[in-house]
């Protein structure tokens, strides 16, 4: 189909949506939070705090304890004590009950968690409410069920917990990442020290309050807030049996180096630069919707984001035309507005990184296109959804992870060509395939080097489905039985 530029659609309509803000009346955020160690909130050893910022306004929300090595050591001691004194002696069935209780309480407090998640991290309330919080509860429900069935889960093997797990999580799905870490660890009989991301500690701290209310034995879950130095201290602590990290490939490599020569088990879930592949026989409109969800959901702050679009050349023009038109309907704005599609960029720093990549792309000769939406003018960190055409595998913006609402577009001619190009990356976390032909789906999925591959959909998660990558996207899996195995040893 040839595209007539006269036939551009006009989404700047007379009838627009009034603000529809989610209520904040029911939430409770303290002015100051300590670490959660040994079942209590305690002040940081050196008495230092830092502010967590609302990225939609640039204003501070609360004061957060700045964890250092002594705080981390204290937490690890508490976790070790709890493990030795009671958790390792608690039956699977009892562990399961605690985990179910946590799951139920997350559901009961879902609205509060959702609002706080959006306030602290910038993601649209629609996503917090319908994706993050329900999935977090689902992970606890799922792993609760395995706690007393470990021998059934791994027949003919004798599973035992590893001991104390140190867990470091990122800022893109704060509560969900905490759930992905804590639930399987506890189900398998471990105790944990969790370090939430520097820019998004609040929902982890609310989870700590919930865990207190759930009467989980003190020290089974400990939460130490802080920045990179707290994470480093946790990785280097000599009494940790296992490190689980989700974050950038760069830091993942540092962690690998740190644990080399120790007995610590490690799992890493790192970056990605997923190929989202559209064939000419794809259901085109649904594919365009899938592209949008793949890269603009959560402002593109998704490790498995479909950030490299590959369109079969015969339908490239129409897909790009539709993408550009469709992008005009995306509403960028207040994360607490129920109609917002794209929220605030998580931090000033991340916005800088994204804008830097946009400059790099332009300087490399790629053609930049952004939606024409209005941006709020209030001190928040905002970025319009955009795409780059005239790119290729040799472009930096195609090779490097941008972690923002920026899509690169390439064309391909054949199945063989696109498999080769999709795999031509150090990453291997995820990919998407769009075609109506079943045999093509099977061929693509066996050929693509990615841990998670979606066909005719994108960004779908379930606690039963193991998530993780190949190559420099890391190793180990979260979710399903594979996720459970990573917290056990088999004697």
């Amino acid at each position, binding site marked *: 189909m040839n595209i007539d530029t006269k036939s551009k*659609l006009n989404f700047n309509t007379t009838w627009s949506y009034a603000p529809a803000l989610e209520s904040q009346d029911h939430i409770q955020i303290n002015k100051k939070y300590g670490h959660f160690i040994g079942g209590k909130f305690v002040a940081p050893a050196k008495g230092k705090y830092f502010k967590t910022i609302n990225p939609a306004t640039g204003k501070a929300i609360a004061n957060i304890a700045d964890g250092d090595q002594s705080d981390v050591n204290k937490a690890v001691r508490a976790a070790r004590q709890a493990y030795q004194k009671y958790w390792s002696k608690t039956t699977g069935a009892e562990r399961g009950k605690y985990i179910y209780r946590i799951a139920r309480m997350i559901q009961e407090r879902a609205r509060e968690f959702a609002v706080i998640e959006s306030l602290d991290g910038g993601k649209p309330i629609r996503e917090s409410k319908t994706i993050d919080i329900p999935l977090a509860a689902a992970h606890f429900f799922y792993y609760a069920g395995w706690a007393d069935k470990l021998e059934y889960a791994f027949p003919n093997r004798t599973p035992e917990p590893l001991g104390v797990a140190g867990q470091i999580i990122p800022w893109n799905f704060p509560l969900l990442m905490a759930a992905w870490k804590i639930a399987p660890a506890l189900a398998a009989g471990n105790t944990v020290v969790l370090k939430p991301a520097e820019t998004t500690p609040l929902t982890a701290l609310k989870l700590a309050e919930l865990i207190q209310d759930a009467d989980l034995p003190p020290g089974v879950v400990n939460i130490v807030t802080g920045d990179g130095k707290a994470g480093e201290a946790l990785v280097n602590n000599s009494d940790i049996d296992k490190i689980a990290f989700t974050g950038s490939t760069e830091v993942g490599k540092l962690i690998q180096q740190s644990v080399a020569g120790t007995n610590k088990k490690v799992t890493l879930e790192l970056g990605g630069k997923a190929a989202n592949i559209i064939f000419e026989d794809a*259901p085109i409109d649904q594919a365009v919707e899938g592209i949008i969800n793949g890269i603009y959901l959560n402002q593109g702050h998704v490790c498995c984001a479909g950030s490299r679009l590959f369109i079969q050349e015969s339908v490239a023009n129409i897909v790009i035309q539709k993408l550009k038109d469709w992008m005009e309907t995306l509403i960028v704005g207040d994360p607490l507005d*129920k109609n917002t599609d794209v929220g605030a960029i998580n931090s000033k720093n991340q916005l800088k990184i994204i804008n830097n990549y946009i400059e790099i792309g332009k300087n490399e000769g790629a053609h930049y296109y952004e939606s024409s939406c209005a941006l709020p003018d209030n001190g928040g960190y905002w970025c319009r959804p955009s795409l780059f055409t005239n790119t290729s595998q040799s472009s930096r913006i195609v090779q490097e992870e941008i972690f923002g609402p920026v899509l690169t577009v390439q064309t391909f001619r054949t199945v063989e060509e696109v498999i080769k190009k999709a795999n031509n990356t150090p990453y291997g976390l995820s990919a998407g395939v769009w075609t109506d032909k079943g045999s093509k789906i099977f061929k693509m999925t066996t050929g693509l080097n990615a841990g998670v591959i979606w066909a005719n959909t994108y960004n779908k998660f379930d606690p039963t489905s193991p998530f993780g990558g190949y190559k420099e996207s890391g190793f180990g899996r979260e979710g399903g039985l594979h996720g459970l195995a990573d917290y056990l040893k088999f004697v």
Partner: protein
Amino acid sequence: MPPTTEIKSPTIDKVGIHERAARLMSRSIKKDSKMMALKLALNMIDLTTLEGADTIGKVKQLCNKAIHLHGNHPGLPHVAAVCVYPTLVRTAREALKGTEIRVAAVATAFPSGQAPSEVKIADTKFAVGEGAHEVDMVISRGKFLQGEYNFVFDEIAAVKEASGEAHLKVILETGELGTYDQVRKASDIAMHAGADFIKTSTGKISPAATPQVTLVMLEAIRDFYYLTNKVIGMKPAGGIRKAKQAIQYLVMLRETLGETWLTKDYFRFGASSLANDILMQIIKQETGVYQSADYFSFD
């Protein structure tokens, strides 16, 4: 116009359609934007009576309702049209004289469409002769399901010609077509054959209009627009009873096609009881007081 062998319709992914529709239906429309949507929706209604038992009396009273939706309440738009059987077109025209409300007639052996083409053409010519501004035809679903797409195309083109100045809406009867792929194919055939509007249903069978099938048809219209620059209208009919549903359809329309289509010239609701629910919501928002169905006339 290309012969049907050259009309290429894409396949439609059902899961994707349902997800897109669900996302659009979750939009929160409040305050002024809700009021604007309510009034827009009201203005887009084709007030309809298509019963075997229709009489001159019934149609006259329906037309009276069309003209006096809610007494002398200020700021209310009028409905777009009244839709009746061909034998009652003259009555409707007479009753609506002096107003801007159009008269649409169903034709072509509505609702089954199981009649020879000559009969369907004659039916159309009669309706137009009686004064219908718009013709709502039905496609031959039997022929379509037999794979005789050229026949379906030719029949639509012939009815379009017989309609003369009147606008032609082509009813696909989506509930009988089976899959969204089929709905898309039928939509494309209809538009290429000369339809001014494509319409979901006769309202006589279930399922009638759904948000999902409407989305499929709106996307067909979008692709046709990209291809030809022609603006084709859309009409979901049957099963739309509540204002909330109507607003969801408008959201879908807005985010699929945009400004040009947000008018009664290119979008209609085929509905009878919808009008009163919209009126109830308008009055409730204006006064802050919940209304009773008894305050709104039933004609």
